[in-house]
C-alpha cells in the first residue's frame, strides 16, 4: 500500500490503541443498555429493600436479640447484577461482533477492546458497590438494618470486598463471552455439544469426589481458603475463557 497510489486517498490505520478504544466506545455507545438499565434495576431493588426494612422495623425494634437477627443481612442484588453482566457479555459477542465486522474491525482489535471494556466495567462497578456498601455499614444499613450493597457473606474488609467483586465480575463477563463465541462460531449445535460436555465434566468431577470420599476434604479446603481464596481460584476459568474465546472467535464468520 506504500508504493502504489490509488484513486482515493488511502488512510493509514490509526495505532492499535486508537482502534481498541474505538471498539470500547462502540460497546458503550448505547449508554442506556450498558450503564443506565442495570443501575436503574439495582436502584429499584434497593428501594424495595428499604421499604421492606421499613415494614419490619417496628417488629425488629421490639425484639431484644437484634444482634442475632440476620434475616435482612443477605440480599441477591449483587448476584442479579452479575447475571446482567453475563447477559451483556453474551450480547457483546452475539450482536456487537457481527456489527463490528461491518465496520471493518479486525477480530483481534474487537476482542481486545471487548475485554478491556469488561475490565473497565468490572473495576468501576466494583468500586461503586464497595463504596455504597461502606456507606451501608456506616449508616447501620441505611438506618433500617438493610443489606443491599454489602451482603453479609462479603465480609468487613473493604479491599477484600472490592477484590472479590472485581474477580466475580470478570468471571461472569469472561464466561459469558466465551460461551457466546461458541455459539457465534458453531451455532446451536455448538451449544448442545458445549453444555453436554460441561454437564459431563461436572458429573465426572462429582463422581470422582464421591468415589474417593473427598467431599469433606473439599469442604475443608473451601473453609481454609475462605471466600476470597475460593473466588480467586475463579481467575483460572476466567483466564481459560479469555484464551479459548479468542481462539474460537478468530476464525468466526458473522452469520447472514
Amino acid at each position, binding site marked *: 500500500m506504500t508504493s502504489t497510489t*490509488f484513486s482515493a486517498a*488511502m488512510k493509514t490505520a490509526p495505532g492499535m490503541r486508537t482502534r481498541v478504544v474505538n471498539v470500547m466506545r462502540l460497546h458503550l455507545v448505547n449508554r442506556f443498555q450498558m450503564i443506565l438499565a442495570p443501575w436503574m434495576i439495582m436502584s429499584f431493588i434497593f428501594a424495595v429493600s428499604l421499604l421492606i426494612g421499613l415494614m419490619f422495623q417496628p417488629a425488629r425494634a421490639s425484639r431484644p436479640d437484634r444482634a442475632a437477627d440476620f434475616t435482612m443481612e443477605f440480599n441477591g442484588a449483587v448476584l442479579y447484577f452479575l447475571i446482567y453482566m453475563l447477559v451483556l457479555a453474551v450480547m457483546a459477542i452475539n*450482536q456487537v461482533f457481527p*456489527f463490528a465486522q461491518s465496520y*471493518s474491525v479486525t477480530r483481534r482489535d474487537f476482542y481486545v477492546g471487548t475485554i478491556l471494556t469488561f475490565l473497565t466495567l468490572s473495576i468501576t462497578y466494583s468500586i461503586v458497590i464497595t463504596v455504597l456498601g461502606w456507606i451501608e455499614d456506616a449508616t447501620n444499613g441505611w438506618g433500617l438494618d438493610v443489606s443491599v450493597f454489602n451482603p453479609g457473606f462479603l465480609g468487613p474488609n473493604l479491599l477484600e470486598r472490592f477484590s472479590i467483586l472485581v474477580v466475580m465480575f470478570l468471571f461472569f463477563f469472561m464466561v459469558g463471552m466465551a460461551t457466546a463465541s461458541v455459539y457465534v462460531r458453531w451455532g446451536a449445535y455448538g451449544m448442545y455439544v458445549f453444555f453436554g460436555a460441561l454437564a459431563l465434566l461436572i458429573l465426572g468431577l462429582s463422581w470422582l469426589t464421591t468415589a474417593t470420599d473427598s467431599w469433606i476434604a473439599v469442604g475443608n479446603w473451601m473453609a481454609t481458603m475462605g471466600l476470597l481464596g475460593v473466588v480467586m481460584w475463579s481467575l483460572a476459568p476466567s483466564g481459560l475463557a479469555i484464551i479459548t474465546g479468542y481462539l474460537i472467535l478468530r476464525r468466526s464468520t*458473522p452469520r447472514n
Partner: protein
Amino acid sequence: MTAAIEVTDLTRRFGSTRAVDNVSFRIEDGTICGLLGRNGAGKTTLMQLLTGQDFATSGDIRVFGETPAENARVLQNVCFIKESQKYPDDFRVKHVMKSAPWFFQNWDADFAETLIDDFRLPLDRKVKKLSRGQLSSVGVIIGLASRAPLTFFDEPYLGLDAVARHLFYDRLLADYSLHPRTVVLSTHLIDEVSNLLEHVLVIDNGRIIIDDTADNLRGTTTTVVGKASAVDDFAHNRTVLHRERIGGISSVTLGALSPADKREAAAADLELSPVSLQQLIVQKTGSPASETEISA
C-alpha cells in the same frame, strides 16, 4: 492501471459445496464494478472473502496489494454494506450514525446528515423497528458517507422505493465523481444500474462467467426478431446464444453484427434490437427469462 482487488484461484468450500470455485479476476482501482448473479451464486460469500469477514479455503486475495483477513491496514479502507447486516438489538439509528465515524476516517458528517434528510430516516427509532426500506437506507448512508476507498454494496436497496433508489444512484454518481474511489455493486436490478457500471463481473455457481467492461457487453449481442423461417436462415452459420419461438415468430440472440450483417437482416425484413445487460445475463446464467426473478 492498478488493481484495487486481485484474486487468484480463490476457492471457498462449505462441506461439499463450492460457494466460490477457483475464481481469478481483478477489479481496477477507481471504477464502479457490478458483481451480478443469481441468488446463491456466491456473490455475498465472495464479498465476505474480499472484506476479511470469511476465510478462503484456498487461493490468494489482494486488496490494495495486501491480504485483507485480519489486516487492519487494509480493512481501514474498506466498507462493506450487506443487505442482511444485523445490528445490535437495542441500537437506535442515532447509535449507528454516532459510531460509524469512529471506524471510517473519510466519514463526512455533513454528507451523512444530508442523506439522513433525503431518505427521511428517523434517528431515534430502534433499528429493529425500521421498515425494510428504512433499514436499507441506513446501510446506503453509511456506505456513501464513509467514503471508503473501497466500498461494497451487497443488494443495498432491498425494499427501497423507486424514488429512494434513484436518490441512491444520483448520490453515488455525484459523490463518486467528486471523490474517486472503487465501488463494487451487487444487485438484481441490473438494468437500473447498468448505466452506472464500468465493469461487470457475473458469477454463477461460484464461477466467474463474464468479466468484461460494460461497454463491450452492451455491444456484443443483438436480438433478431422476425418470421421463423427468415430468422432461421439468418441465424444459420452464426452462433446462437439464445432462441425463442412463439407461433410463427422467432427471436434469436446473436453475437456482434457487422454493418453488412445488419443490411442483410434488414433486407430479410428482420428486426434488430440491442440486448440489455439484464437480458444478456439472464440468458448466460441459463434460465428462461420468464423464470428469472426481477425483484422490486
